[in-house]
């Protein structure tokens, strides 16, 4: 079978697997967040932590709990990273410096998993397993909680209550992420991923050289890294590393894992608001964007335009032989269209157009299907913006799912839309304005600008993948990229919760003659258009000077 036929079959198998689990997983998550009794283990957690699970919170209370929890998580992880040299299983690694520990703590708590360090030479097993992987679970559960709170804003009426943050956090962790991660980790380890607590061991190679064989609790971290759309590799090479991703099966399985929850959430949304066709509409918009991006990246890589790919005869620099061009392009598209940022190939060495589309994927705000939870709330905000713009065109008050989109709601939507470009563009501007940060750019000219823009796009969108040529282990980058992650994560979350609070207070208006239907192809097309136009307005100049200029050169 030819490369294209095999690649298409792999994509087909992936889509089929996602389709099979879509309905049951979507319905299951709706039950988890839809109320009902607490499990015994959850009651135990609430008792030990002295949290009242039956308190219903206003949006302000919900936001305060979320921010308090996240602040404590950053501090805890910061301390863990600083002190790791004095803890067991450190493998001789010492504590991280202050700026690096700040960056990494923020990175994992914000679901970004940007990594300035190389795991195998910087971190011991304990801090990876009990520090970083814990946030892989909890940051994903926080994203789910915010999405569910927004959905409740649409589903509820005449109330100022959005649910209980602690219950949503614990249920997402205990009932969704933990069981799925456990199953996924067993599959990975059965397929050859490593799971041990060994220190690096030096062996004499066959040809008489030496090589250090590394180990660690890798499979357990790999599973939640994909499932929670986190992306932080146990090793520097991330999912290109054979111990994280040993063969073509695990490669496709990991793509499946990182798309699993985000692609099922529109179903959860449909169930919770009592209209599954509204969920199908969001899923359709996600699918259109995702498929378009996949075609563009794969075509660019297969055509291998550019000086070096033409000299080589294929776009194979930075790609594993066993994954080849097609499966690598599939992984790259999925990881930048969600907020994952795991990589099975070096994005920096992609063709100008292929790498440019990966950059654009993140700048679209990661809504197709987006991060765990953050994809759904991002797409819902885009849907509200779409009905608002449609309302402007026909001159009537817009509404979505029976809720009026008035000045208050529009304000929060506008603030949400502006937060991410603010983090990305201010960060990129600062970095290229000063000679210090410019000095660590690896590749010359337009590709260098792409590296910087990619770094702030990745952190501002909590993705975490990198055009890794940029040397980011400096105080400047650790600090500003850390701030970009904080701004890109928590400002939108606060605006989403405020929007949810405003929506929940409304009494739904009945569907009338002039109501724009939000479940048909017309609305899906408009939604896709809005997502593209918002990104284009903010980022066209940057993209033109980076990947576009390089591709035309």
């Amino acid at each position: 079978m030819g490369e294209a036929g095999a690649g298409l079959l792999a994509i087909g198998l992936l889509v089929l697997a996602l389709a099979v689990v879509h309905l049951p997983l979507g319905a299951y998550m709706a039950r988890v967040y839809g109320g009902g009794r607490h499990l015994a283990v959850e009651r135990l957690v609430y008792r030990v932590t002295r949290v009242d699970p039956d308190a219903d919170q206003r949006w302000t209370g919900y936001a305060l709990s979320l921010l308090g929890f996240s602040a404590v998580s950053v501090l805890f992880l910061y301390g863990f990273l600083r002190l790791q040299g004095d803890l067991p299983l450190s493998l001789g690694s010492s504590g991280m410096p202050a700026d690096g520990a700040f960056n990494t703590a923020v990175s994992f708590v914000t679901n970004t998993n940007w990594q300035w360090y190389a795991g195998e030479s910087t971190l011991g097993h304990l801090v990876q397993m009990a520090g970083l992987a814990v946030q892989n679970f909890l940051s994903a559960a926080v994203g789910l909680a915010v999405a569910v709170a927004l959905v409740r804003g649409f589903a509820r009426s005449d109330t100022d209550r959005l649910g209980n943050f602690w219950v949503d956090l614990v249920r997402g962790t205990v009932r969704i992420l933990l069981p799925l991660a456990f199953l996924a980790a067993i599959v990975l380890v059965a397929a050859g991923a490593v799971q041990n607590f060994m220190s690096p061991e030096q062996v004499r190679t066959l040809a008489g050289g030496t090589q250090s064989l590394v180990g660690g609790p890798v499979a357990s971290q790999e599973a939640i890294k994909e499932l929670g759309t986190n992306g932080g590799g146990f090793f520097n090479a991330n999912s290109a590393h054979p111990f994280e991703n040993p063969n073509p099966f695990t490669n496709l399985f990991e793509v499946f894992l990182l798309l699993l929850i985000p692609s099922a959430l529109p179903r959860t949304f449909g169930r919770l608001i009592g209209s599954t066709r509204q969920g199908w509409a969001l899923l359709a918009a996600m699918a259109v964007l995702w498929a378009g991006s996949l075609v563009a990246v794969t075509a660019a890589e297969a055509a291998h335009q550019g000086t070096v790919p033409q000299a080589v005869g294929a776009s194979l620099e930075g790609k594993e032989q066993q994954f080849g061009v097609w499966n690598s392009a599939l992984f790259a598209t999925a990881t930048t269209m969600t907020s994952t940022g795991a990589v099975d190939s070096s994005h920096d060495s992609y063709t100008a157009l292929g790498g440019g589309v990966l950059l654009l994927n993140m700048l679209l705000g990661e809504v197709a299907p987006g991060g765990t939870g953050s994809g759904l709330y991002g797409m819902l905000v885009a849907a509200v913006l779409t009905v608002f713009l449609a309302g402007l065109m026909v001159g009537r008050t817009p509404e979505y799912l029976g809720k009026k989109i008035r000045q208050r709601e529009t304000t929060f939507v506008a603030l949400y839309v502006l937060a991410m470009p603010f983090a990305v563009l201010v960060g990129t501007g600062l970095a290229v304005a000063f000679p210090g940060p410019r000095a660590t750019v690896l590749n010359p000219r337009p590709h260098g600008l792409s590296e910087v823009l990619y770094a702030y796009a990745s952190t501002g969108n909590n993705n975490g993948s990198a055009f890794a040529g940029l040397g980011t282990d400096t105080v400047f980058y650790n600090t500003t990229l850390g701030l970009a992650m904080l701004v890109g994560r928590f400002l939108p979350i606060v605006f989403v919760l405020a929007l949810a609070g405003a929506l929940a207070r409304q009494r739904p208006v009945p569907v009338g003659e002039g109501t724009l239907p939000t479940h048909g192809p017309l609305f899906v097309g408009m939604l896709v258009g809005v997502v593209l136009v918002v990104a284009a307005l903010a980022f066209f100049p940057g993209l033109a000077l980076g990947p576009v200029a390089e591709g035309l050169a």
Partner: protein
Amino acid sequence: MGLQVLRQAAAGLRVLVVLSLLTGALYPVAVWGIAQLAFEHGADGSRVGDRGRTVGSSLIGQDFSGPRWFHSRPSAAGPRGYDPLASGASDLGPENGTLLRQVRQRRAAAAAEDGVAPGRVPPDALTASGSGLDPHVSPGYARRQSARVARARGLPERRVAALVGDHVRGRLLGFLGAPRVNVLELNLALERLGRRGPGP
């Protein structure tokens, strides 16, 4: 307000500690237990041995140079390549002059060493992988090396070519991934072939 924030933070710390025990200790240790019971070989890194000693992992590529060995792909992991303590890619872009020079040098060197036309050196021989630890080369690159290896080891060329053929792995299920040859396993088999003598 200040008190409220403090109270939320204190609750957050308690929840964090409890969930850390669950997701950061119980979960990885449970996976480790099952892995060690049922999948020990893979969980410990798919080690391969030769005459009673571990020589590496079948998942981690090694540096092989000189005419007697099948060569791995170029590697950007550490200054000498294939260093598992420094996994990673070159991260050089598609218009990068340094990478272009490297590709040209690699093409000339491989063509001269294996006695093939420069245009017939396959792409995987010219490029570094994403991990820097790629254990595989393409079947085409392995085949182009077999005449040189056979000559250097004094083995019949058809025996070496047959050995390469035995080590070609196609796409998984016929469509997943790309065809490949594991270089460490191939070189190990080559050593064993040499020890048994060239045969008939």
